[in-house]
């Protein structure tokens, strides 16, 4: 059982399918072979039966000949000889049919008996029938009759021997055919049982796999809640967000955003993109979110936060292939200033209230690659300004021809977008889905923050 589980688990459904296909092939092949063997056996049986019919015909012809000669010798009327001549002509074809079957079946004993029968028949013609027909009243008639009797007896004995051998062969063929049918039946039943067992085991394994998947899904949903990007409401702002994972059936991925209040006037904002996607990348995003929040308890400067995180990340994550692009910003809602540091994250955009659109330049290298200093940049915001924190799933979304949207495309879409922060995010997501025909190549995280006028909603 352990070996079977290992086999199935190791090679998966492909192995199971191959086993079933092989079994099916064996069953079909066996059925075809049996059908051919049975057909050949029936053909031989038919041959034996034809030989028995031919032998019966020979005996019947012999009776006709003997009766005809007897009638003629008694009456001397030629009309009695008609059956004799007719039977003489018909004897050879039936004899040939019988001889062919005996040769095909390699029945040497029966062939010898048939040879003796033919000799007796010829001798009866030459030494008994023809002399009696020529001279019915010969003085040797009694001797001829005795010889005729002996020859007829000899033919009968030979015919009886052939008949017995044919019957034996026929019985043997029937037994062989029946044995073949029985053997096939047992073999087929065996295969059915074997495949049934395989199917049951496979089904049991599938059920177990389904249960395990269900448990994993439950675990994943629990983890998703922990890993989920989230935001708190921030005074004087209108906020919208969206998160789409490129991994089917999984609501988490390698992108993360976070927005939470540090004080009444300060909010920490974060967006990051981890190389890779799926559950492995999601684990890193959780690390990012809670580590940044922890650092932000002690530091308000985004560049320092990124630098400290970079050190922690390189020590905690030993995989050299993992790196992160991340923007951390501190939003002062009273002064309407954004201080940010961007570690290689170039997908943050600012749409001014007057309609101007720009992207916020990066201020340092990607995290996890090297330890280099990060610098802060301060942006003065005005009421109506909208910050769009995105991951590269937006700019790198591809159309049917494989063309990426790129930064100009994003800026164009952002310039055209209208409505509240959430409406703008939803509109962008809809356009990405339409562009990619719902086949996202990468995770996508969007966080939109629009500055309001002293607590007065803009719309």
């Amino acid at each position, binding site marked *: 059982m352990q070996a079977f589980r290992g086999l199935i688990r190791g090679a998966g459904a492909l192995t199971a399918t191959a086993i079933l296909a092989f079994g099916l092939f064996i069953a079909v092949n066996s059925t075809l072979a049996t059908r051919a063997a049975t057909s050949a056996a029936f053909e031989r049986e038919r041959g034996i039966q034809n030989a028995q019919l031919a032998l019966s015909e020979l005996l019947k012809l*012999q*009776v006709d000949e*003997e*009766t005809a000669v*007897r009638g003629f010798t*008694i009456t001397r009327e030629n009309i009695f000889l008609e059956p004799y001549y007719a039977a003489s002509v018909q004897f050879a074809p039936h004899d040939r049919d019988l001889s062919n079957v005996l040769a095909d079946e390699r029945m040497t004993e029966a062939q010898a008996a048939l040879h*003796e029968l033919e*000799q*007796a028949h010829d*001798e009866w013609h030459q030494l008994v029938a023809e002399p009696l027909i020529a001279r019915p009243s010969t003085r040797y008639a*009694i001797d001829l*009759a*005795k*010889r*005729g*009797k*002996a*020859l*007829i*007896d*000899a033919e*009968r*004995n030979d015919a*009886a*021997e052939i*008949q*017995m051998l044919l019957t034996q062969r026929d019985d043997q063929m029937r037994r062989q055919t029946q044995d073949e049918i029985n053997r096939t039946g047992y073999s087929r039943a065996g295969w059915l049982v074997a495949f049934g067992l395989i199917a049951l085991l496979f089904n049991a394994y599938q059920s177990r796999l389904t249960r395990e998947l269900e448990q994993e899904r439950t675990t994943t949903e629990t983890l998703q809640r922990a890993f989920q990007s989230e935001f708190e409401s921030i005074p004087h702002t209108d906020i919208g967000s969206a998160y789409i994972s490129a991994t089917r059936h999984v609501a988490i991925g390698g992108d993360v955003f976070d927005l939470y209040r540090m004080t009444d006037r300060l909010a920490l904002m974060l967006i990051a993109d981890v190389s890779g996607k799926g559950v492995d990348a999601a684990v890193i995003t959780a690390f990012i979110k809670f580590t940044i929040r922890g650092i932000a308890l002690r530091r308000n400067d985004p560049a320092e936060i990124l630098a400290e995180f970079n050190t922690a990340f390189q020590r905690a994550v030993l995989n050299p292939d993992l790196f992160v692009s991340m923007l951390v910003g501190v939003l002062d809602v009273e002064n309407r200033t954004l201080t940010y540091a961007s570690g290689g994250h170039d997908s943050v955009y600012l749409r001014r209230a007057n309609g101007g659109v720009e992207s916020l330049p990066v201020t340092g290298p990607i995290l996890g690659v090297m330890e280099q200093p990060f610098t802060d940049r301060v942006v003065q915001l005005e009421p109506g300004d909208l910050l769009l924190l995105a991951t590269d799933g937006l700019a790198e979304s591809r159309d049917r021809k494989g063309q990426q949207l790129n930064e100009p495309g994003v800026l164009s879409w952002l310039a055209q977008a209208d409505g509240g922060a959430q409406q703008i995010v939803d509109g962008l997501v809809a356009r990405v889905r339409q562009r990619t025909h719902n086949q996202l190549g990468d995770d996508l995280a969007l966080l939109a923050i629009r500055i309001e006028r002293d607590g007065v909603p803009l719309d």
Partner: protein
Amino acid sequence: MIRRALPLFAAIALWPLAVQADCSSMPGSQIALFSGNYDPDVLVWDSRHRLLAYATDSYQVAKLLLPHAILARAGTTAVVTSCHRNAIHQKYRPAPSDVVGVRMTSGEYRGRNGWVMVEDVHVTGQRATHRHHP
């Protein structure tokens, strides 16, 4: 000594009866001869052993033996004189056949003794029926 030999003498004396026990034809029975074969006439042999040889050997042997047989017309009546059970073993027959000793009571060979196969013997009862083959 004589007492001890009595059972042996008795066995020897009763042997002919023993071999006839359960035989198909009882001595004294009146019969008619005709063959179930295509030729209904019956070969009557002057010796039981020649009959056995005729029935079991090839035609080449049978041909040499023929001068020792007479051809009785079908329907010739006869009386059973003896019977030997299971005397003929033909390879194509499932069971052995009896041979029957007869004395013909009609036909051209009336009064002659001979041996026939049991298949050619047909009991007619107290009086033999005279049947003639066409």
